[in-house]
């Protein structure tokens, strides 16, 4: 396949809006190719989009679907052509997830949170999602074995457990959600801060996070720890955010990447002492990130309208349910986690929601280096992913932000600095925040760029980047981003003019990390005891079998994995 004459943005390879041809053969970018010619003359061309943090599969997602038939009916699209029927808006069915991401030019999406014991379910759903390459992060932050290793300061055994857990879950990396809080929720309480001990385990969230970061680097995992802070979603929590980031300054990354990725920072950049005096502290967070290089983040942008909040932060969800008097699902997971799901509507009339909306944008605009901040909505927590074009246009257009702010609460300008921010992102920066940076942050070498050997994932938009002024013509930009002219996945046109033409099966990434045998042996003694006494399933029935990952892409890590190729 030859993609002819596009205006290409490939920031990972230093290409910023150059007219050039791209060739794909055997599913990869090559020097030269024959076959189908795609006319992209004058059009915006970028690598396929990569979403490093989204909720697309597993128990939480299905719980959201089951409790929300009201949401399912909103997104109904008929079965037609190669497509099975779509339903849902905030909690779409598996098919809709694949089609809608592909329609926007995305080709890769990572599920953000899976407990090991429920990973089989996650993979069942990932397998049903068409087109996309995907992976799932594995939850470790409230796991008994983790806390016991942390308590014993036994990082080697912890690393062995992480390796074992990733393999059992066919998981990609370490996700930590409200560390210690999930365990405390087992008896209905929470941890209050980074140094508040976890009941019954005599460890602090700070210790858990730090130890997991050490284990992460000991195993040379492709991704860093992926962290959802304590106290998330609470006024005044920016201090927890800063404290946590400071506590990780000494972590030496084992690869050329961050030491910690902080997810949906919007929910952790809150000032004030209550919802009454709630205000943005985005500038302080951005300032910290500008001065330090060990951390990256994603926005977790919130948009007005319907959302479904779903997180392993179960106490937060109970709070949400009581606050909004909405439906509440909770799911505690033996020895490992807890979680919750609550539907939500963010209202333009609510000052709190307006401030939240502004915080996400401030974070992205005040952080100078676009490689440090990803465009996400923590879908469907801040808003469903189909609204990414709205977020991108807000980032690219000051007039759009101003006209939006004019419709919001009058107090807003006192609570955030968004109105004073002149910065408008350009296509290079957007390409970084939606393609190059998520791939690099995740450690996906073949994604997010268009260099030789990269995956043949390309998105082409019906938009001339040199002619359209994204600042003024934001409506045109939004329309173009919502329905790609072409989405090409591994060299196959999967979507043309917003219509799905093919639904190939995507790959599932997982990390096979090797730990020292002696540590693994010590670990097994612990685990056998846990399965005999505490788990409700047998150890032999626990791990995800190969049959659940039919198109795996195994990334080797850990001991003996050899020096890893670095991203450009």
């Amino acid at each position: 396949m030859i993609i002819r004459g596009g205006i290409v943005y490939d920031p990972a390879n230093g290409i910023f809006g150059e007219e050039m041809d791209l060739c794909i053969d055997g599913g990869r970018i090559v020097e030269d190719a024959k076959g189908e010619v795609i006319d992209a003359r004058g059009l915006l061309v970028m690598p396929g989009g990569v979403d490093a943090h989204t909720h697309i599969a597993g128990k939480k997602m299905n719980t959201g679907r089951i409790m929300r038939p009201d949401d399912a009916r909103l997104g109904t699209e008929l079965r037609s052509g190669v497509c099975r029927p779509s339903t849902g808006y905030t909690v779409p069915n598996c098919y809709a997830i694949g089609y809608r991401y592909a329609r926007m030019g995305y080709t890769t999406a990572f599920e953000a949170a899976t407990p090991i014991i429920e990973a089989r379910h996650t993979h069942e759903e990932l397998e049903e999602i068409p087109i996309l390459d995907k992976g799932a992060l594995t939850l470790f932050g409230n796991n008994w074995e983790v806390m016991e290793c942390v308590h014993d300061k036994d990082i080697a055994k912890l690393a062995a457990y992480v390796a074992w857990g990733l393999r059992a879950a066919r998981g990609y990396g370490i996700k930590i959600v409200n560390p210690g809080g999930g365990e405390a929720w087992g008896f209905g309480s929470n941890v209050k801060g980074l140094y508040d001990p976890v009941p019954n385990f005599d460890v602090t969230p700070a210790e858990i996070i730090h130890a997991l970061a050490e284990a992460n680097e000991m195993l040379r995992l492709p991704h860093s720890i992926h962290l959802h802070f304590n106290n998330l979603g609470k006024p005044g929590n920016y201090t927890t955010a800063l404290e946590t980031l400071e506590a990780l300054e000494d972590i030496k990354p084992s690869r050329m990447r961050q030491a910690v990725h902080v997810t949906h920072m919007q929910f952790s950049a809150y000032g004030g002492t209550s919802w009454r005096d709630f205000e943005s502290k985005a500038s302080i967070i951005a300032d910290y990130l500008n001065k330090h290089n060990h951390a990256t983040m994603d926005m977790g942008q919130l948009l007005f309208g319907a959302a479904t909040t779903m997180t392993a932060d179960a106490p937060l969800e109970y709070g949400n349910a009581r606050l909004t008097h909405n439906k509440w699902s909770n799911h505690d997971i033996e020895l490992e986690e807890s979680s919750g799901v609550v539907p939500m509507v963010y209202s333009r009339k609510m000052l709190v929601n307006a401030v939240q909306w502004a915080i996400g944008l401030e974070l992205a605009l005040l952080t100078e280096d676009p490689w440090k901040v990803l465009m996400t909505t923590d879908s469907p927590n801040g808003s469903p992913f189909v609204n990414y074009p709205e977020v991108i246009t807000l980032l690219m257009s000051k007039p759009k932000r101003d006209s939006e702010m004019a419709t919001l609460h009058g107090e807003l300008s006192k609570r955030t600095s968004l109105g004073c921010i002149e910065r408008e992102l350009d296509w290079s920066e957007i390409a970084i925040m939606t393609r190059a940076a998520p791939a690099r942050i995740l450690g996906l070498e073949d994604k997010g760029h268009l260099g030789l050997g990269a995956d043949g994932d390309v998105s082409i938009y019906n938009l001339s980047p040199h002619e359209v002024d994204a600042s003024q013509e934001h409506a045109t930009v939004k329309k173009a981003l919502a329905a790609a002219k072409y989405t090409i996945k591994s060299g196959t046109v999967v979507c043309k003019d917003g219509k799905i033409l093919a639904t190939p099966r995507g790959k599932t990434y997982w990390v096979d990390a090797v730990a020292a045998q002696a540590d693994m042996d010590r670990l097994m003694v612990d685990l056998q005891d846990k399965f005999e006494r505490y788990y409700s399933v047998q150890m032999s029935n626990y791990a995800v079998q190969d049959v659940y990952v039919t198109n795996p892409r195994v990334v080797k890590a850990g001991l003996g994995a050899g020096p890893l190729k670095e991203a450009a």
Partner: protein
Amino acid sequence: MRNIIVAPLAPIRISVEAEILSPDIFAPLSMEQICGLDVWQGNRKRKISDLFRVVGDEGQVRPEETALRLEGDFSRVKRIAEGMTAGTVDVIGSAGMHAGNNMKGGKLSILGNADDWLGREMRGGSIAVEGNAGNYAGAGYRGEKCGMRGGEIEIRGNAGAYLGEHLCGGDIRVAGNAGDFPGAANQGGTIFIGGSTHLPGAEMTKGTIIVNGKAKVLPGYQKLEIVTIGGEKYQKYAGDLVENGKGELFIRTGSS
């Protein structure tokens, strides 16, 4: 007024979904165009004229100038007058499920019985049923917070269970009895029941329910004073206190 008559050509076995039976759809179309409209019978898409005799005045008009008369047994025809905004629909017989669903204006009259989900999520207009209505009259869809938000439903016979579930506004009057749980999670509408019912106003937070017959009252209702409405004495209750509700429930004295 432009009059259009629709009548089944033969008894209907597999139910028909005919959301096009609405003044809003018919008004701007010629008779030929109307006859070409699709309805669904199971997985078969059919022309309306395959299943129904359709006759009426020609002339493109506005919905409020359109009178639709459905003659015969429409009890297996669903979604009659869905979303209608104006005009009239008279069913000279019984109507199937979801009649007047999401209705916004105009008038729907049903001479016979109405099946379940009559006036589901209705926002305006009026519905009158001479016979009985099924379950969920004036209710919402599964999982939604709001059912009927406005308009009026009058049922001269009995109503089924879950009458006005999640009611957010509007008035429902039932001359006869109502099934279990009328006005459950009522958030601001009014329900009048001429006969008896069971457990009215479960989790009601706002709104009013008046029962002239017998009704078992939930433990979350606080007994207040006796009041007189329209010359009759009623026991007033406030609730449902399980939800800190401020709804008002009136049950005619001597009946509970």
